[in-house]
């Protein structure tokens, strides 16, 4: 298992968040998630400007195997979506923390970091799931 990027926050739904300099938050799925899903073949993205609630459906990633919801880990407004994924959903497999980002949200308030996981906490979750 590869090392988790240390500058990200994580959720127990196996998503990651990165605070960008422009105040938006990039969101994607973790390496563990892409590996469990297998080859991705389709990504359903939200509309730019759409409001999402914390915990609400935000996107759907579909692998050859199965469809999986991507939940909004924070409340906000969709500021950008990764249009590239329409033609190359497999980027999520090859670069889940980089080019495979899915959505950028403009948070609607302060981010409650206590509700999210640090890399160490997420690693513990993965270790527990492995066991």
């Amino acid at each position, binding site marked *: 298992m590869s090392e988790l990027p240390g500058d990200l926050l994580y959720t127990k739904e196996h998503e990651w968040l990165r605070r960008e300099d422009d105040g938006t938050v990039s969101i994607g799925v973790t390496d563990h998630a892409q590996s469990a899903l*297998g*080859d991705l*073949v*389709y990504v*359903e993205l939200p509309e730019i400007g759409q409001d999402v609630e914390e915990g609400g459906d935000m996107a*759907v990633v*579909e692998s*050859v*195997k*199965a*469809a999986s919801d991507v939940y909004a880990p924070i409340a906000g407004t969709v500021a950008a979506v990764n249009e590239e994924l*329409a033609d190359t959903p497999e980027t999520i*497999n090859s670069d889940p923390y980089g080019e495979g980002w899915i959505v950028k949200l403009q948070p609607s308030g302060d981010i409650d970091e206590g509700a999210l996981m640090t890399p160490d906490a997420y690693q513990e979750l993965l270790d527990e799931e492995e066991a």
Partner: protein
Amino acid sequence: MGSKTPLYDKHVEAGARIVDFGGWDMPLNYGSQKEEHHAVRQKAGMFDVSHMTIVDLTGERVRDFLRYLVANDVAKLQDPGKALYTSMLNENGGVIDDLIIYFMSESWFRLVVNAATREKDLAWIRQQAEPFEVSVSERAELAMIAVQGPEARELAAPCIDADHRDDAMALKPFFGMEAGDMFVARTGYTGEDGWEMVMPAAQAPSTWDRLLAAGVAPCGLAARDTLRLEAAMNLYGSDMDETVSPLEAGLGWTVAWEPADREFIGREPLEAKRADTNRMRFVGLLLEDKGVLRNHQRVVVDGVGDGEITSGGFSPTIGRSIALARVPAGDYDRAQVEVRGKLLGVRIVKTPFVRNGEVRIDV
């Protein structure tokens, strides 16, 4: 923990993701299931199918018994080694299982049935066999490797006993033969050429290693499913079960109606279903929009009624989503499928979608 095939350690060694399949710990994929899929379409891949149930039937009246037991007619099996695909029906004409029957000799026929239906199949066959004095023996000590793809036979030939290699290479499609300790058949579940090789369990790991060294890619259940879907080969439990007749599962071609006086289990209700012009159709679907069709999604035919996807997924060869579906009777070539509350357009296409490496539908 489930049952393990003789090749379990080989799967773990190769980094397989192991899942439960009908009580067996089986490899789902070793890496990318798409790459495994393409390996079979373009070169050669191998599947551990040792979990499948091999049953040998022996006795003087075994042919008579099989003519009664299954919907296809083993009277068609006249040349030794010839194989027959058929469904086995219950008294209501529903499908208990689908299986392959090999004609070994006049007093010995070999069946290969599904792993997930093993117990009920064996119980049913034993019960029906009694009056025919046919002996039913499961060959759990045998392992099976399916080697599939345009180069499969060539790459696998060195695994066959030298005395039998030429004969094995000369096997026609849907024929099998004994080759020393092995039984080799030119059959499969991928829509590609290849062999299914049955052998003593102890021989399986070394055969697997030889195939691996020859460049045959290990392939898991995930690739097996997309390959068989492209080939429009049915999956028991998804496309048909005991509540569905073979006529509504695209298996009408496996029912032998002639001779009309052959009595087989389920014939009477099946005749009634045959006369019912309103029975459901079993069709192939190609998704025209982006997205992925999945099992159990609703098929909507405007002004006709609803159907259901029985096997849906993404076709790595076509690059689009395809499905098998049970839909209402009628003359139409377009429908819609409900995916997460939205209706997506699908075209009804003639199956198979892919055969021998080539896309067979208009995309």
